[in-house]
């Protein structure tokens, strides 16, 4: 720890330097990181609200494992849809990481293609979420109440997944736009594919948030 703060540690040098504190980080990327930090606070506040409400209601909390179970081919499998959604999102994170890599390797076509795949996976995630919402609504789950227990189950579910879903949808659009621009060679002149990495940061963040929602909302 001590060496971190010593005069010539890289940390102190960067902060004490002129022009920029994050050496070699483009404006766009710096801004995306700061935005994600702010967004972290948004999702954390949502989750804190969820935690507090869940811990302080006297009604029993519905068993997520059961509520989100599906019967597939006669088998009753708990949480299966959520598991699939999780895998899809992780897959999309993988393809996104590849796209970033391709971008830096100046493989324009591959990068764009991988981004399209990512967007497609993202879209299918949103689709499954829509399916999940429909199913729950058919079963009588509403923001103001549900047949399984505490009303806040429905409220937090729609709020938290809805907000995450909005982020995914925005990400899909963002990815599509950037991918298209790459395909058309917009960034060829400057030879700078950082834009892919920036889009990637956002996309991975959406995945990251899902990791927490999966753990705290569905598994807990």
């Amino acid at each position, binding site marked *: 720890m001590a060496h971190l703060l010593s005069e010539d540690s890289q940390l102190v040098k960067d902060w004490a330097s002129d022009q920029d504190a994050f050496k070699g980080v483009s404006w766009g990327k710096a801004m995306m990181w700061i935005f994600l930090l702010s967004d972290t606070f948004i999702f954390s506040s949502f989750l*804190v609200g969820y935690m507090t409400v869940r811990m302080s209601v006297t009604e029993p909390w519905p068993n997520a494992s059961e509520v989100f179970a599906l019967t597939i081919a006669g088998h009753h499998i708990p949480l299966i849809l959520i598991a699939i959604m999780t895998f899809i999102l992780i897959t999309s994170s993988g393809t996104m990481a590849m796209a970033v890599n391709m971008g830096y390797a100046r493989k324009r076509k591959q990068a764009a293609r991988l981004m399209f795949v990512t967007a497609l996976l993202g879209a299918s995630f949103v689709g499954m979420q829509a399916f999940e919402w429909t199913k729950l609504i058919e079963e009588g789950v509403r923001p103001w109440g549900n047949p399984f227990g505490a009303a806040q189950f429905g409220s937090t579910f729609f709020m938290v997944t809805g907000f995450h879903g909005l982020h995914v949808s925005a990400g899909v659009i963002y990815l599509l736009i950037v991918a298209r621009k790459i395909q058309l060679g917009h960034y060829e002149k400057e030879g700078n594919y950082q834009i892919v990495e920036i889009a990637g940061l956002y996309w991975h963040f959406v995945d990251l948030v899902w990791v927490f929602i999966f753990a705290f909302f569905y598994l807990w």
Partner: protein
Amino acid sequence: MNEPQSFWTKYVWSQDHKVIAVQYSITAIVAGIVALVLSVLMRMQLGFPDSVPFMDSEAYYQAMTLHGMIMVIYLLTALFLGGFGNYMIPLMVGARDMVFPYLNMLSYWFYLLSVIVLMASFFVPGGPTGAGWTLYPPQAILTGTPGTDWGIITMLISLAIFIVAATMGGLNYVTTVLQARCRGMTLMRMPLTVWGIFVATIMALLAFPALFVSAVMMLFDKLLGTSFFMPAVVSMGQALDYDGGSPVLFQHLFWFFGHPEVYIVALPAFGIVSDLISVHARKNIFGFRMMVWAIVFIGVLSFVVWAHHMYVSGMNPYFGFFFAITTLVIAVPTAIKVYNWVLTLWRGDIHLTVPMLYAIAFISTFVIGGLTGLFLGNVIVDIPLSDTYFVVAHFHMVMGVSPILVIFGAIYHWYPKITGRMLNDTIGKTHFWITFIGTYAIYFPMHYLGILGMPRRYYAYENYEFIPQSAHDLNSFISAMAIVVAVAQVLYIYNLFWSYWKGKEAGPNPWGATSLEWQTPQTPPVHGNWGEKLPEVHRWAYDYSVPGYDEDFVPQTQPQPEDRPAGEMA
């Protein structure tokens, strides 16, 4: 760089940070004047009951709510971050503009939209919300409070839009400070103005999310019938469908935003006033490093003191110990700032220019406001004082007077750079004296009404035995003073207009200041700020009265002489 040509692209759809700054400031001041008028109406009712015909208790609570909300969010936050932040950051760190000018422009338009939505709430059915600027549920959305149908909805939506605007602007300011400084400009060579705004912006980016989330959750409670903040209640004899929520949760989320928010409006004032004092006392700011660290510590600490607004809220009472300690610890870095301001004056060469008058008045009013904060932070002392006029006096001194004085001083100080002309000194001095003495007369006695036990947010105090007639008389006196001060603000506005056309020509650097904004090739600076070449910085921003120089200031761009090591301060 091709100059934008038409009026529309130059002044309306402009992406130039300086134009955006002026747009932000004008909008904020207009909103502030609305809030000022509301405060006068409130004071009329309190000092001279029933003197305003339409002022029934509903209208009073609506005026009070909108007054508080506009002043804190739409005036101070917007003016300091959107106005001063936009104008000063690129100029003071030696950048050509904000890093993403288009986003910066959007930020303003979203802000304007939020103000329009807010003002629209005056005209919606049921009028604006009257739940207090803290918007506590359940009353904010239940009958019995004014504006529970449309007022509260427009208010929450307006806040959400404001947060989007503040985020877009804030990302720009932070990134610009971190990544777009000119050669030689280290963080420790930035003027304190930039430091204050920079840290305040970071805090805004981290605190507004909590407000955003609570606004969303309350909207859901109101519109969808969810029960985040709503337990089972029987409102006006009617059992409602809500069940199981927690009103105290809202208060925690609100103040997790709310306390940092009060420092969001204080830190830029701290920064700006440091520069004003230093320039006009012709002396370096005393203990610059400590000043920077104090700003940073205050910023960090303010995220762990929020529940000092909730000592009597029915939360877990043992939290009182934790929050009383953290709250009073904040006094230490704040005290450092105060000491360093006054020590800067000591052995200075104090020019009592108008900005300096405002700056010194700031110290005095801030100290009394801060010290009364210590009463409130000390949990047991807060218990009798909470929700009384003592609190109102505290936050007006510390927030309603002192940062406003800084704004007056700062506009006075930078007006020559923005317009090329000086403001008028006579009008400036008249305005200063009325405002400074007047606000003391308003708020100093108000503390005693609070100690006496008069609760805040009371529309009237009829027939309370413990309130003597003399207290009512004092209330009338306070109101009279408030009206005088409010009217005096016309002087300042008039000055802004008059001097724009008639003011004395200023020249590039009328105050003899060192920081970069005074070294631009043109005054007012043009699009792109620096002409051909970006400036290069060789020293900190406070080289005033340096021994061995003829002038009593050395601009930041002036290279160090060979024989001196690179400046006293990094």
